[in-house]
């Protein structure tokens, strides 16, 4: 279940280094919100062309943005009814472009590469006392335990069903929270035994 949106099928975007894609994304994000309608039209065209060249597998992944499309439609409708359709289109298009760009980055860049870029970008902050190794450790722990706690939830749910015949729902929250805290206590003990702090 810990699959990310990364697309195994290779596209030309997969070949670009992760830091370049991140740079383009943040630069585009900035000019999208700072620039005028012409900028928006140029970016929207570029995004459309990029998506068109990426192939069917990419288009399938982009379907996960349907929920966002609905919200953008509502924003368009809201502006159209209260003041002007142009403003609505402007707001919806800016958001839509950025969301599609973000998705393109996510589906074309392996998780580990993104993590490496972030780590490299944060490294200078170590001078100011940001504990980057500890942040990386916490990140790894989080990933590992998502799966464990998901299984734990399913076990609690099954146990509840066996007892009462109904789904556990919110009743499982407190037991799960207790298990999380107790597990954290043990993991903390193990860590401090190994790290010595």
């Amino acid at each position, binding site marked *: 279940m810990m699959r990310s949106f990364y697309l195994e099928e290779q596209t030309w975007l997969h070949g670009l280094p992760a830091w370049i894609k991140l740079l383009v994304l943040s630069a585009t994000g900035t000019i999208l919100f700072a620039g005028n309608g012409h900028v928006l039209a140029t970016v929207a065209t570029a995004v459309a062309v990029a998506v068109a060249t990426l192939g069917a597998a990419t288009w399938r992944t982009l379907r996960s943005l349907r929920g966002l499309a609905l919200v953008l439609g509502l924003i368009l409708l809201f502006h159209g009814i209260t003041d002007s359709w142009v403003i609505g289109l402007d707001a919806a298009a800016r*958001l839509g472009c950025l969301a599609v760009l973000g998705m393109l980055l996510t589906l074309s860049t392996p998780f580990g590469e993104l993590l490496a870029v972030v780590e490299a970008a944060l490294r200078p902050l170590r001078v100011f006392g940001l504990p980057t190794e500890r942040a990386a450790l916490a990140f790894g722990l989080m990933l590992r335990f998502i799966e464990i706690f998901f299984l734990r939830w399913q076990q609690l749910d099954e146990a509840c069903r066996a007892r009462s015949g109904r789904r556990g729902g919110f009743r499982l929250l407190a037991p799960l929270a207790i298990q999380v805290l107790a597990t*954290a206590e043990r993991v903390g003990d193990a860590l*401090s035994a190994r790290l010595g702090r």
Partner: protein
Amino acid sequence: MRPTSSHSIALIALFAALIAVLGVVPRLDLPLGVPITAQSLGVMLAGCLLGPRRAFLVLVLFLTGVALGLPLLSGGRGGIGVFAAPSVGFLLGFPLGAAATGAVMRALPGPIWLRAFVASALGGIGVVYLCGIAGLAVVAQMTLGHAALGVLIFIPGDLVKCVLSALVVRTVARGLPQWERHLG
């Protein structure tokens, strides 16, 4: 316990994992059959159970995972694109809301469930909605008033989450009596 000790790291990482799981769990049905997503409940619980500083870091860690493309948000959303969605203010409000919840929880006197309820309402609704409304107004180019009207319908559901948060915190305090020192 020092704030950056191994135990803190474990708590922060595992609670972030819990919040991710709360987004994957199909849904929580309330007694009347009303489905709610549990993720914002996780924000309140983090604040109530871990204190302001660690709760803040839990949500920062969680959102980092989301930004790097893990589908951790409820409904399997993720990727840096979600920070371009109209709900971005709510997301960025999560760490602040969790920290506020923790601070209020720590400052209040009284029975534990009442403290948890008030803290959840002030942090998990008050602060999160302030950020959410501001974000919506900026991103969707609305006035603050219009943006506030647009999100009002979610308040009743979130009040229910405050009640759940209070119940869970009370149960945890009973189930793990030694936990009181973290709540203090």
